[in-house]
């Protein structure tokens, strides 16, 4: 009896107050459009049954409380094509993505926070679509772009058949707080380009001279010999050789030639070497260093220029001499230093002397 009285005294007024207040208390749910989002897939080919991965960038406009989720909902009519096998996925927050803009809303600023778990569920009929769900989010700040990478696990991700647009909806929500956006991606029939190449069987040789003219310095009549250098470099698929011949005066011998009156040839005398050491000696010759890699410089050219003995050159095509060779095997940028030596005799007239050495380069047949 007493309890009924208490109920009447307290309960009824309370009820009425609540009813009265309910006219003024308005319950509202918050839903907004995601400010920026993209779905970056590792393949955009239609009809794949496995191996698809996603990187999602998402920028909510609303602060999302902790305990939230991210979902990607695929077209309703394509059940089982995007989530080919339902199951767990690997979801990992990422702080950047190759598809980012250089700055702005479409540049990931933070990894999607939380202990992330991903699942893929298949749709079943109308109103139920394949869905990727990521749970375990902690609080998201409004207007921050978050990134997450999703890979298959026990769940397998694919793409639906047929090239063209697909509408997907990405949502991020926690409780009644939700931002979402529906937009389109595009699948094509084939997202790969195959580049094929044939490397020719034809043998090749590449020859380089570092300088097409070399100064010999000052030639003192009856003085010490002078030297000047450049390099030659060779690359070849299967052996190479160099030969050289001079021009000289065009009729007698190779060597340094002064063509103006009084003419004078400082010859490259002999068939093997020219010794420029003796007091009255004059002549012109050349030596080479032997590069590593199995190439050979013939003995008469494989000399130290400081010795004053140089290999002798002959004249014109008929006088071509082998100066370096590698009979087999590939060679890559094998370098030899060519040093010319010259000495003028005491009777050498003053003037400019020059020689043109032609270097012949080739590969073996």
């Amino acid at each position, binding site marked *: 009896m007493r309890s009924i009285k208490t109920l009447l005294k307290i309960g009824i007024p309370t009820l009425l107050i609540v009813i009265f207040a309910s006219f003024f208390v308005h319950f509202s749910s918050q839903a907004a459009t995601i400010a920026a989002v993209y779905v970056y897939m590792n393949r955009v080919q239609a009809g794949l049954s496995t191996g698809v991965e996603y990187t999602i960038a998402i920028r909510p406009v609303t602060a999302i409380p902790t305990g939230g989720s991210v979902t990607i909902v695929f077209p309703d009519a394509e059940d089982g094509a995007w989530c080919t096998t339902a199951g767990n996925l690997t979801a990992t927050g990422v702080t950047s993505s190759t598809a980012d803009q250089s700055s702005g809303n479409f540049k990931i600023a933070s990894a999607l926070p939380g202990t992330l778990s991903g699942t893929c569920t298949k749709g079943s009929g109308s109103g139920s679509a394949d869905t990727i769900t990521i749970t375990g989010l902690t609080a998201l700040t409004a207007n921050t772009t978050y990134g997450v990478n999703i890979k298959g696990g026990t769940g397998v991700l694919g793409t639906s058949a047929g090239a063209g647009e697909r509408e997907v909806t990405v949502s991020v929500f926690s409780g009644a707080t939700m931002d979402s956006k529906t937009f389109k991606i595009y699948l094509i029939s084939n997202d790969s380009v195959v580049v094929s190449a044939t490397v020719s069987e034809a043998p090749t040789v590449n020859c380089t001279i570092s300088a097409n003219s070399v100064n*010999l310095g000052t030639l003192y009549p009856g003085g010490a010999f002078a030297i000047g250098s450049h390099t030659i470099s060779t690359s070849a698929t299967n052996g190479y050789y160099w030969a050289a011949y001079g021009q000289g005066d065009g009729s007698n011998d190779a060597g340094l030639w002064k063509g103006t009156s009084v003419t004078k040839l400082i010859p490259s005398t002999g068939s093997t070497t020219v010794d420029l050491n003796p007091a009255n000696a004059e002549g012109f010759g050349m030596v080479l260093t032997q590069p590593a890699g199995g190439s050979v410089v013939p003995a008469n050219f494989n000399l130290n220029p400081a010795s004053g003995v140089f290999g002798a050159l002959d004249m014109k095509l008929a006088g071509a001499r082998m100066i370096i060779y590698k009979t087999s095997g590939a060679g890559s940028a094998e370098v030899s230093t060519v040093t010319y030596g010259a000495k003028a005799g005491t009777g050498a007239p003053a003037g400019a002397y020059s020689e043109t050495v032609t270097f012949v380069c080739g590969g073996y047949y």
Partner: protein
Amino acid sequence: MILKTLKEYNRILLLPVIILCLSVVPVFAQSSLSIGVSPTFKTLKMQPGETYSDEIVFWNLSGESDTYDVHIKGFRQIENQPGTAVILTDEQEAEALYSASKWITVEKDVLTLEPSKNTKLRYTINVPTNVTDGEFNAEIFLISKTKGELEGSGTFANLAAGTPFLIQIGDEFIENAELLRFTSDKKTYERINVNFLTQLKNLGDTHITPVGEIVVENIFKQEVARIPFNRNKQSLLRDNIGNYTDNWSQSGYLSPSKVLSVGPMKAKLLVTYRSFQPGFAVLSSEASFWIIPWKIIIAILVILLTGIIVVVSKKKLQRRK
């Protein structure tokens, strides 16, 4: 006074003037030269009256353009080195019996190679109808004409490269060769680093690629080494002499099969060169040389001698006692 001073300075000034006349003013421009070629050679089988077209690829990996004159002439080996080629002089070309230079035409006489670009030179070979069977040769050969600058004394460098062609006409060829010489480069060696020098002459009407081996035996007729002859398969032009060098090196005086490699050695060369039934044309020759590790021998002798002296001395001392 002033004139006297000037006269004295004259002598001082004259010498430098002479020197300067023979010296170079170091103001000149250099540039590099670069040429690449593919293929490095071409072998063709053709018939009289037949035509063949193709292209050679040249390239320039330097930073400057280079210009080359295009020459087509027969070629020869360089210093009897098989597998090498340099075009004939005009005089040699006039006398060359097997030059195919007149069969070949190219689209350009001057070729400019741009930096880091491949340039293709198209050529056509028209075999005359009245040509005899046999092998003919020619080379498409580029010689640079890009000149450097030089003031004073110095050397210019030209660069030349090309593609030699070996054109076999007909189906049957005479392959014949003569072994002119087989020897070692020295008679005695302290260490085993022997170069075998072989000289062959091609008497046939086509190029040959001789192959074979050199077998080295010791005084006990035990096989010490077996070295391939012309392992790099360098070819020998018809009517040419080719010098082949093959090397035998060994770090110790025991072969890998534990055979002694000291003392008088004999090397036997066996060469075949025919493409058809090569066993019916074997060239052979022998060469002898010595391997004398004289430093080791002297050391052994010194030790022995020392030992003998010590022993003898001891005995003498014992006898005295």
